């Protein structure tokens, strides 16, 4: 990975493209960020070629949603970029009518949406803010571990940071698992024995619970329960209690015991 964060812009309106270019270049220069505007183009395909040519690069992308007359639209372009660059920071710049917030959120997980209708000043402010956020995240993620967790649904892979994962539990019906995240519950198809093998960072504390030990806040030895910050609890098997406590001690996790 090269040291500097690459920035890309695809905007089919030449005037707006020029404005965006200017905002981005100025902001990078003023803040003296370790970034550069690698490509600013009107052609979606040009960006895709560039990304394909440098598959391990990491970038910040400002994309429009609709490119009239072109084979690719913003959604397709963004999902192709995501395939190459898992950590891509994607910002959609478009009119309100074109935005499909929920759809994009679900499929692309963009960094931000910038609505053009709000006027030149607002757009400028948001672009600058996104540059700062992207740069901050880019420099920080090198230091902290960026352990990821993924699950699949209907042939589609969903990635999320491991620090979001609390535990996995067997569902009410056969072959269904329930993934408990900090602010989300996800049901998906799978077997807990397979997940135990697939995710060595998680610990099987019970025949129906696979837990992320980093997220436990309290373990009640007497009641054989584990507690999380939001109040959710899990059962811990007697046989596994000893191993779990050993693991907590070894990794020096901040878990209260009683």
């Amino acid at each position, binding site marked *: 990975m090269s040291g500097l964060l690459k920035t890309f812009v695809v905007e089919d309106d030449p005037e707006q493209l020029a404005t965006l270019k200017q905002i981005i270049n100025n902001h990078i220069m003023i803040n003296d960020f370790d970034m550069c505007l690698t490509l600013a183009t009107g052609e979606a395909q040009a960006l895709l070629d560039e990304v394909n040519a440098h598959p391990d690069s990491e970038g910040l992308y400002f994309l429009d949603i609709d490119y009239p007359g072109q084979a690719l639209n913003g*959604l397709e372009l963004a999902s192709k970029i995501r395939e190459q660059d898992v950590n891509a920071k994607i910002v959609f710049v478009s009119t309100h009518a074109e935005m*499909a*917030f*929920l*759809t994009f959120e*679900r*499929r692309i997980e963009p960094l931000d949406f910038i609505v053009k209708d709000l006027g030149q000043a607002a757009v400028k402010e948001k672009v600058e803010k996104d540059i700062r956020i992207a740069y901050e995240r880019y420099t920080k993620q090198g230091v902290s571990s960026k352990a990821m967790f993924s699950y699949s*649904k*209907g*042939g*589609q892979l969903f990635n999320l940071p491991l620090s979001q994962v609390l535990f996995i539990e067997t*569902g*009410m*019906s056969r*072959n*269904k698992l329930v993934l*408990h*995240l900090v*602010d*989300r*519950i*996800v*049901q*998906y*198809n799978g077997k807990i024995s397979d997940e135990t093998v697939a995710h060595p960072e998680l610990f099987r504390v019970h025949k129906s619970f696979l837990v992320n030990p980093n997220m436990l806040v309290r373990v009640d030895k007497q009641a054989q329960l584990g507690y999380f910050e*939001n*109040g*959710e609890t899990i059962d811990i098997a007697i046989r596994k209690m000893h191993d779990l406590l050993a693991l907590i001690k070894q990794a020096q996790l901040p878990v209260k015991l009683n």
Partner: protein
Amino acid sequence: MKYTNGGHFDTIRLLNYRFSGEGRTIVYVYWYIAAFDHWYSVMLVFMLQILINRELRQRRVYVTVVMMALLLTGLYMWYDDYSDIATFIVNLGLLWFVRNKKFFIVTSLTATLSYILFSYFGNFATETIFHLFGLGLDQWSGWLFEIVGETIVTACMLAVAISFQILYKRHARQFTDEVLLNVVVCALAVVAIAFFAITTAADNYNIGSGFLGILMIILVAILLINGGTFIYLFYSYTMRVQAHRQSLERKQYDIYVNNLESSYQNLRKFRHDYQNILLSLGEYIHATDNSELKTYFDEVVLQSQKSLTRDFGHFDNLERIKDKSLKAIIQNKFSVARQAGIKVRLEASEPVTQLAIDPVTLARVSGILLDNAIEAVKSQADGQIAVAVVKYPKMVELVFANSIQAPIARLDELMTAGHTSKGVGHGQGLATVRELLDPLDNVTYELGARDQFEFIISIESE
């Protein structure tokens, strides 16, 4: 309590009788002993049940136990041949006091199992021990026999009680499953009835205990096969009825959806006509020189023009949704929401054809989710509801989202039945949604509440 010297086990008693053959007096003595013996066993089973089930710890239960014991003693002194069955039935009589279904089953299971173990295994074990030590069954060793026998029996029963406690603790979920519990209870009842029928027969016709075992296996097998066949037939019948009802439901739902769509189209056509009529009417009125009529007309038309441009029935992207069930429910609920002043948005970037889910289920689920969303957003000043249909190569996801005022801490609690969080307005139906979606192999769901509440249904194409 002084320990009574009694021939506790019926077979042994018969054996003794045959060996000694001392006539009527000894028979009376044995009857008396047997009565005390059963008294002991009945008390033991009762105490065990009271020990397991807290619900039974009340005065009238204790009184009943004593009354039963006295009654049994009297009964046995007169007639001893069916004592086992009588004891068992009296034991089950204790269940009269059990109100909680869960405990009812635990108690009855304990009574049945302990009684079987008690009569059959205890008997066999004692005989074996005596055989191993080469002790005869004369008058003296009878004492010893009785003590060893009762110890073993008590141990057996305690083992049953403890194992039930453990089972109940370990498999709490299975104990709350009514169907499974009923099946287990039925099976055990069958075994118990078979056992008592055969032992009584064996007692009365002097059949050896080896043969007794075989008889019992055969009887149990026959009863279980009968029961199994019945259950199979019953379930296949209910399944058929259910399938029929579902197809009926679907047909009616189709009719409803078609009616709804055509009435919306009629409404739109009428709106269009009405606007044209107003326009031409305006032309005529402006051509006249009645100024009062002119001002009145302009006032009225201005008003109605305003409400006409606000089309409650039209939503962007709705035409992309070709799944009739989904389209109808969105049309319906979005109209309700819009009339309540809630902003609604529908996202569908690609046309969506028939989804791989039963249309009635989909309608029920999305109806509940949208009702919840409307309920939650109503009280918000600037509330919004959005639905997105997201297409993947092998899957379609339906995202139902609405704005929230305060974050929801415990999403898992929203999903459990009976948990209603009126303030948020999502508790009511989510348990039903879960009930409807859980059995479907190709459907999974997610719910999140970060900046907004969202419920995502993922439907994999089959």
